[in-house]
């Protein structure tokens, strides 16, 4: 029960500050916590359900205090990976290490990890207060302390008025915040969030994303989020791990995975990407849009470029190639155009179908895809 001792009781003293800038959960702020020693390590996790291999040797390092997102389509194994960390599945092979301690075969109720479930899983027979107090009571905290901590957590999530409501009397957004409070009040070393926003409508989701991100920063806690929504992942994460077919394809900051996708899947899953067939030639990489000085690991393969990276010109410039506008979609802030030969671009220029234009692909925006 080592982790019990780690819970800081000092945080309570700072409750007075209405701004709440001091953290109940960790007094040492968010910065400077990127020491791997306190982080979560997954080492060669394998899991199969019957014939189906859900995870194929996943290794991953999540830093302490980091907001990490597992992003992927449904069935990619991201939820299973999260459940393995939470203690709801046992991996067939591999280890889960947290702060140097092996959790792999520790039962869920002894892990310093808490989960916000997809459908929140609030206890229907308990009030909001009792739901949030559940974890503390399970660990035998004195009632006075339970009260203080629960009230603080409820305040943190603006739930003060709902203390005595039952879950079925709450809106979706309220339920979600109760689920968050119920998990956070335990000061977990890692908070796991399994698609917590999938049940909210689009507008609320955007608000909650900001709130969640702020909360995580403020508490300096380690959050691991599972989602299939790439915009959500980009909005909240320090780093994203893109998963597919039971593997992690790429790990990086939102900017890295967006701007420098390593594979075709990552490029296409995160936003729109132009896939440009290419061939290694004498002067560099040959494409329908010109030859570029790039190092490629293959004879034939693909380059990728985001539509907004493509330069669109009304007149020829050095290095540009002529193209014809096939279709134009008005997106408000910009125009999206489909060109012939096949290319998607975003531009502020007013284009119309059948117009002859010139495009240039800046080599900086070209990404070499490895698979």
């Amino acid at each position, binding site marked *: 029960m080592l982790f019990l001792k780690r819970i800081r009781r000092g945080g309570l003293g700072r409750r007075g500050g209405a701004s709440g800038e001091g953290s109940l959960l960790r007094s040492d702020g968010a910065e400077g916590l990127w020491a791997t020693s306190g982080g979560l390590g997954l080492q060669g996790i394998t899991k199969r359900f019957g014939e189906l291999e859900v995870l194929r040797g996943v290794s991953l390092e999540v830093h302490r205090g980091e907001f990490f997102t597992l992003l992927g389509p449904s069935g990619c194994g991201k939820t299973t990976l999260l459940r393995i960390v*939470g*203690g*709801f599945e046992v991996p067939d092979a591999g280890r889960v290490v947290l702060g140097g301690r092996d959790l792999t075969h520790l*039962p*869920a*109720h*002894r892990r310093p*990890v*808490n*989960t916000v*479930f*997809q*459908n929140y*899983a*609030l*206890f*229907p*027979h308990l009030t909001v207060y009792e739901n949030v107090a*559940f*974890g503390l*009571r*399970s*660990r035998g905290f004195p009632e006075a302390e339970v009260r203080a901590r629960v009230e603080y957590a409820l305040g943190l999530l603006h739930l003060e008025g709902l203390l005595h409501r039952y879950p079925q009397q709450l809106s979706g957004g309220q339920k979600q915040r109760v689920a968050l409070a*119920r*998990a956070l009040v*335990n000061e977990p070393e890692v908070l796991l969030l399994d698609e917590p926003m999938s049940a909210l409508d689009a507008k609320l989701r955007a608000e909650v994303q900001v709130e969640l991100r702020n909360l995580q920063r403020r508490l300096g806690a380690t959050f691991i989020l599972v989602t299939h929504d790439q915009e959500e992942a980009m909005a909240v994460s320090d780093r994203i791990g893109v998963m597919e077919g039971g593997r992690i394809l790429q790990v990086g900051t939102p900017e890295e995975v967006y701007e420098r996708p390593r594979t075709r899947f990552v490029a296409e899953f995160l936003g729109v990407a132009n896939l440009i067939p290419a061939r290694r030639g004498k002067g560099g990489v040959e494409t329908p849009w010109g030859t570029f000085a790039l190092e490629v690991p293959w004879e034939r393969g693909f380059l990728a470029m985001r539509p907004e990276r493509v330069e669109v010109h009304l007149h020829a410039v050095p290095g540009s190639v002529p193209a014809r506008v096939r279709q134009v979609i008005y997106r408000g802030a910009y125009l999206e155009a489909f060109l012939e030969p096949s290319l998607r671009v975003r531009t502020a220029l007013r284009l119309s179908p059948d117009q002859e234009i010139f495009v240039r692909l800046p080599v900086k925006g070209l990404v070499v895809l490895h698979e």
Partner: protein
Amino acid sequence: MTRAVALSALALLYLPMLAVALFSLNRTRHGLGWGGFTWEWYLRLLQNEAVLEATRNTFLLALLSTLLATLLGTLLALGLERHPFGRRFRGFLETLLYLPVVTPDLILAAALVVAFGFLRQAFSLFEPGLPAMVVGHVTFQVAFVALVVMSRLQGLPRELDEAARDLYATYPVYLRRVLLPLLTPGIVAGAMLAFTLSLDDFVISFFTAGPTSQTLPLLIYASARRGVTPEIHAVSTLIFLLTVLAVLGGERLTRRSV
């Protein structure tokens, strides 16, 4: 047309009870002539040793058998719904549970008579009488309790169990603070069903009762064969009214819990 048939069919169900209620208020002791209104027969019930004894037995039997059946049935449901048995074993247990539900009560009674007959040679508990009747009632109640509790368990999402364990609950804490409270409506519903089934039973009691363990249905049956008294009309009317209250109350309860 539909309406006429439906109403007369419903009348078919209620007419006899109406007659019984009417004659429970008839002053005439013998025969069916109308002798004027009286509460006398209801008051006499309070002094009728046989009726009082039968009432005591009926409720004692229902209470004991329900307690036992609720315990066994709940354990069965927990075992079956929250443990991964192989398909065969699970199928076997499910068949076992449906057996008392689909077996005609007369056959169940025959089986019990045979079972008690053989067991009697070893244990005096199985002499005809209240203990044997309790065993008989539990045998058909268990399945109903288990099925009701199981359906409640199936309605509880697995995430609730996981959330409890995620929030540091050990198995006993999880049982006490999550599973049992959530299961209580199912257990209560199962127990109420078992209790009602026991009160309602005639056949099993008939075959397993001893001389000192007469229940109300047995008493009424015996009188119906010998010749009924107005007191029997009074008892029957009371039981009927009790049933009406129970059904309406139960309806309320289930509608609220939905």
